[in-house]
C-alpha cells in the first residue's frame, strides 16, 4: 500500500506541489490528472526519489520515502515523460543493464529480461539498437525498463502521449497487465486514458488536489445521487405504478422505445445499492422483465473540466 501525506515541493520558494495526500491499494491503477504544469511530474519525481520533498512524506508498504529511499528505489519502476534510454545500446543489453542496476539477483536477470521483452511485445526488436527504434517502440522499451522486476509501485509519466491509437491500445494492455503485480500511478492530461485504465483518480491543479476518489459513474457526481437507465418490457402504466410506490426518493422518466414493445426508464435516486436492488426486485415481482440496466453516462470530460475550472 502507498500512503502519501502532505507532500510539498517548492522551487525558488514557490510551491510547485502543495500538501498532496492520497492512498493507493495494491493492484489499483491511479490516474494522476491535471493540466500541464499542475505538478504531476514533480509529484511522480518525488515518489521516484529523483527529487526530495520539502515537507510531507510517503510510505510504501511501511518504508519511508525520505528515510528509506535506497530501499524504496528497489521497489519502484519509473518511466519519465521522455523515456530514459541509452541510444547506443541494443534493447536486450539495455534491459540487462537495468536489471543489474535494479539489483535483480543474477540468476533471475535473464528470465526477468526475457519475460519483460515478451510482456512489452518488443521481442522482434530485442537485437536492435535503441537509437534506431521508432517512437512507439522506444516508449515500450521505456515502459519495459520500468516494469522489469515487477516493482511494487509503478510510476508512469504520460506513458501514452504522442502515440498513435494502435500503440496507445497496446500500452494500455501492458499497463493493465502490469497492475496485476504492481500498484500503478500514471499521469496524463488525456481524459480517455482515465476512463480506459483507472480505478481511481486524483485531480490536481496548481499543485493542489482538487478531487480524489474512485472512478465510476457515480462518484464524480457532486449531488450524491445515482442515475440509471433501464430497458423494461411491459406496459407504461404498470411500470409507473411500481416505480411510484417504491420510494418517494425516486425520480423517473418513462419513454417508449420505437418498436413499442419495451420502454426506457431514466431513474435518479440517492446513491444507495438498497434502493437499486429493491427496485429491481419489485419490477420482477410485478412480472416486468428487465432487459437492460445501465448507469446513465455522465460526461466525464465535462465533470472533470468542471473540477479543473473551479478555483
Amino acid at each position, binding site marked *: 500500500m502507498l500512503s502519501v501525506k502532505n507532500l510539498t515541493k517548492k522551487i525558488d520558494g514557490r510551491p510547485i506541489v502543495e500538501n498532496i495526500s492520497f492512498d493507493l491499494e495494491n493492484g489499483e491503477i491511479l490516474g494522476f490528472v491535471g493540466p500541464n504544469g499542475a505538478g504531476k511530474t514533480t509529484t511522480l519525481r518525488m515518489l521516484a526519489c*529523483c527529487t*526530495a520533498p520539502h515537507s510531507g512524506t510517503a510510505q510504501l508498504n511501511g518504508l519511508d520515502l525520505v528515510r528509506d529511499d535506497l530501499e524504496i528505489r528497489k521497489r519502484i519502476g*519509473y518511466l*519519465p515523460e521522455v*523515456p*530514459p534510454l541509452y541510444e547506443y545500446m541494443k534493447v536486450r543489453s539495455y534491459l540487462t*543493464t*537495468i536489471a543489474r542496476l*535494479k539489483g535483480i539477483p543474477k540468476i533471475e536477470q535473464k528470465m526477468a529480461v526475457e519475460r519483460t521483452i515478451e510482456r512489452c511485445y518488443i521481442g522482434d526488436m530485442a537485437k536492435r539498437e535503441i537509437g534506431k527504434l521508432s517512437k512507439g517502440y522506444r516508449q515500450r522499451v521505456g515502459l519495459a525498463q520500468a516494469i522489469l522486476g515487477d516493482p511494487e509501485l509503478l510510476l508512469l509519466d504520460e506513458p501514452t502521449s504522442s502515440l498513435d491509437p494502435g500503440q496507445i491500445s497496446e500500452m494500455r494492455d501492458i499497463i493493465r497487465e502490469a497492475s496485476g503485480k504492481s500498484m500503478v500511478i500514471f499521469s496524463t492530461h488525456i481524459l480517455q486514458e482515465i476512463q480506459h485504465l483507472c480505478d481511481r483518480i486524483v485531480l490536481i491543479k496548481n499543485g493542489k488536489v482538487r478531487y480524489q476518489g474512485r472512478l465510476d459513474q457515480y462518484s464524480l457526481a457532486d449531488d450524491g445521487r445515482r442515475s440509471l437507465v433501464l430497458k423494461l418490457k411491459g406496459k407504461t402504466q404498470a411500470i409507473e405504478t411500481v416505480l411510484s410506490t417504491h420510494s418517494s426518493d425516486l425520480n423517473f422518466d418513462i419513454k417508449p422505445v420505437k418498436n413499442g414493445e419495451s420502454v426506457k426508464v431514466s431513474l435518479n435516486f440517492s446513491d444507495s445499492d438498497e434502493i437499486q436492488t429493491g427496485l429491481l426486485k419489485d419490477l420482477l415481482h410485478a412480472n416486468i422483465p428487465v432487459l437492460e440496466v445501465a448507469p446513465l453516462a455522465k460526461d466525464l470530460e465535462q465533470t472533470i473540466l468542471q473540477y479543473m475550472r473551479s478555483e
Partner: protein
Amino acid sequence: MLNIYRKELFNYFWSPIAYIVIPVFLFISGYFFSFSLYYLKVATMSNAFHNMAILLLLLAPVITMRLLSEEQKSGTLELLFSMPVSIGNMLLGKFLSAVTLLGIMLLGSLIFLIPLITFGDPDFGPIWTGYLGIFLIGTCYISVGLFVSSLTENQIVAALGTTAILILLWFIRYIGSFEALQFINLPFEFISISTHQGDFVRGLINFSSIVYLLSLTGLFYGLAWLRLHIRRYG
C-alpha cells in the same frame, strides 16, 4: 558501482571515443618520444612524460565530457536517480571507467620501453615514478572533467570547460612571475600541476606532490558529488 563501471566502459568501446583517444595519445606521444630519443640520444622518458601530461590536457576532457552531460541531456540521470544506486557509487563507477581508459593508454605507452631497452640501458627508477606521476595527474584531470561534466548537459561545453580549468591548473605557476601580479601572494608554484610532475620524472616520490594531486582529485570529485546531491535533494 560495478554495474555503472561496466556500462561506462562498454560505452567507451561502443562509441568512437576509445578508438580515437587511445591511438591519438599513443601516436602523438610516440612521435615526441622518438623525436627526443633520436636527437638527444638519451635512454630516458622524462620528455615523453612531460608531453603526455600536456597531451592529456586535451584528451582527458574528451574522455570525461560525456560522463554526466550525456546522462543529463538524455534524461537517463533521472533513471539512475530512481535506481537503488547511491550518488557516490554512481560517480565512482564513472570515475573508475575513465581511469581504466587512462590506464589502457598508459599501458599502451609501455611499448616505448622496447627501443629504450633494445638500444640503451635505461634507469627504470625514474620511468616507474614517471608513470606513477602521469597516472596521478591523469586521474586528477579526470576528476576535474567529471565535475565540469556534472555542470552542463552540453558535451562540448563540458570538454571546453574542463580544458580551460586544466590549462589554468597546469600553467598557473607562470602567473606568479608576472610583475603586475606580484601583489597576489598565492603559492602559484605549488598550485600548478606541472610543478608536481618534475619530481616524479626525476625518479623521486615526493609525498607532498602525491598528497596534492590526490587532494585535487578528491576536491573535484567531491564537488561533482555535491552538485549531484544538490540536484537530487536540493
